[in-house]
């Protein structure tokens, strides 16, 4: 039983890491209805930029702020070159555009900073300690705390500020938002910049765990089932989805994996998400789509 709880908590904490990536998706999807495939590339780009700046000798906070500034510039560029010309096009077209965008950002990141693996030390020991007979990772707890702070501040942003009000207005009905004088372009830049910030945080945590390297851009794929289960448009859903995916994939790997040869972590979340979709097509917290002919 103790072993079960240990696997479960380990999985839940790993799930928090998935949620961090998924939150970036949700931000952009909520405000512009775009499924941003480039989120993973942004995670890679942010982490690589930060590490390379640090290796150039910049102190932690300066490097962090500089990377943030670069992510904001990236948001401006994306809005100008991709979002604005493609306004009002079908979601599938926009999705494919972000697929192209992810290639550009990945190529750019590696062209600028090289393709070798960088170590990243955030000063938190990745050592397990014991609570009530269960091994817990200090690093995972730290990541969970960061995620909690992020979620609280994002929900404050959405619910208590003027910017959040306009974000929700745009998400609800872009045309109505335009007609009451909300500037769509500024909202997009703001939301892509926020997603850039989230991907920086996710990139740092994932980078410290795996090393900063190309495979970081693949965490985007793990965030997909998280989004499906949680629903595309809910931050709370991203967290719950992350926890479900993290816990079930670890449990499945430990208890089902040995029966069919192991390594099932790679595809299990997708299968789970597909089965989930068959029962609840809009996810746990997603909005039910209503169609008119």
């Amino acid at each position, binding site marked *: 039983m103790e072993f079960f709880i240990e696997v479960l908590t380990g999985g839940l904490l790993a799930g928090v890491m998935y949620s961090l990536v998924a939150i970036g998706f949700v931000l952009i999807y909520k405000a512009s209805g775009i499924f941003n495939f480039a989120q993973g590339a942004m995670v890679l780009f942010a982490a690589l930029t930060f590490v390379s700046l640090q290796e150039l000798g910049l102190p932690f906070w300066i490097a962090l702020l500089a990377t943030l500034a670069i992510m904001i510039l990236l948001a401006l560029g994306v809005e100008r070159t991709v979002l604005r010309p493609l306004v009002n096009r079908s979601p599938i077209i926009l999705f494919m555009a972000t697929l192209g965008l992810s290639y550009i950002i990945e190529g750019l990141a590696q062209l600028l900073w090289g*393709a070798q693996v960088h170590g990243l030390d955030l000063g938190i020991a990745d050592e397990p300690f014991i609570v009530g007979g269960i091994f817990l990772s200090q690093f995972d707890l730290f990541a969970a705390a960061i995620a909690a702070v992020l979620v609280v501040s994002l929900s404050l942003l959405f619910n208590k500020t003027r910017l959040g009000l306009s974000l929700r207005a745009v998400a609800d009905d872009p045309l109505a938002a335009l007609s009451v004088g909300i500037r769509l372009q500024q909202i997009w830049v703001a939301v892509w910049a926020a997603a850039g910030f989230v991907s920086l945080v996710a990139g740092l945590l994932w980078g410290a765990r795996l090393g900063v390297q190309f495979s970081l851009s693949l965490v985007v794929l793990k965030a997909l089932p998280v989004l499906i289960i949680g629903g595309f448009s809910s931050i709370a859903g991203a967290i719950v989805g992350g926890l479900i995916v993290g816990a079930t994939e670890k449990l499945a790997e430990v208890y089902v994996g040995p029966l069919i040869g192991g390594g099932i972590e790679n595809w299990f979340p997708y299968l789970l998400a597909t089965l989930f979709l068959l029962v609840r097509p809009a996810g746990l917290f997603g909005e039910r789509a209503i169609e008119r002919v």
Partner: protein
Amino acid sequence: MLFSQAGQFSTHYGQDRRVFRLKADRWSVGTLLVFAFVGVPLLGNDYWFSAILIPFLVLSLAGLGLNLLTGYAGQLSLGAAAFMAVGAFAAYNFQLRIPGIPVLLSFVLGGVTAGLLGIFFGLPSLRIKGFYLIVSTLAAQFLIPWVFTKFGWFSNYNTSGVITAPKLEILGIDFDSPVGRYLLTLAIVVTLTLFALNLVRGSVGRNWMAVRDMDTAAAVIGIPLTRTKLLAFAISSFYLGIAGALWAFTYLGTVEPHGFDLSRSFQVLFIIILGGLGSILGNFLGAAFIVLLPILMTNLSDFFFGSSIDPGHLENLRKILFGALTVLFLVKEPEGLARLWHRMRERAGVWPLRY
């Protein structure tokens, strides 16, 4: 005026319904086919056959398969390579387990196996649509190569999961030389393309397009959604399966499950975006582009900078270029290279006048 549409009247319904209604089209397609079947084998060399023409043809076929699903029926898929893998491994196993089975039959059976699996992974499309479908196709993309790697039975217990091409012999004629493999691939691709051309202008294709444009509306006017969507998945996967078998046996010769990973799926997706969604011709243009661009870039950089450019940089530049071209095409010409071609044709019809 390079060709004329004037004076070509249809006097029977049959004439009006032809795939190539214009005389100029029939002539140019006929000439092209004769050239491809007779001229190219005489003129080309082994490098052209093995490194350019065969991958071009196979990728065109793969693009065609995905285009039927995504471009015509509107179902987004990131699992193209998985169905290619199914086609390759199934064809290999039919060869292995049934002694004396004809090569072509094993290809067809490989395609049919891929088609059946396509139906299975297409089942979620009945409940969900749009982006959500990405996940169920991704499930196929990760699950299927894993199965081929994990269970040795599929690769006849080869230690690294590699399968090797059988001897390509049809009706006693040996197709193992580069020219032979080119001709075999060409014949299969041409046959399947003609079939697809007929498919998309018939009731099946019209149903697909109605579902693509709005599936609720399609259901309202009485198009059976279940059958239409699953048929799209089945036929698309059949094409991808055949393409996978060709990729393994006429292009590479040996292949491992890893050769059909996610980046291969993206490659096929890029072909149909660049070539043109909902176009048969576009797949060929897109595939030609994607095969030729890397070769062109390598040659250009060799020419201008010698070998001073790091191949890693070149790879990254290529990635950036592909991404930028994708975005550019989606912004400027969402119907892709095929639309550019049609515009050129219209120009040629009135040349040298402007209109």
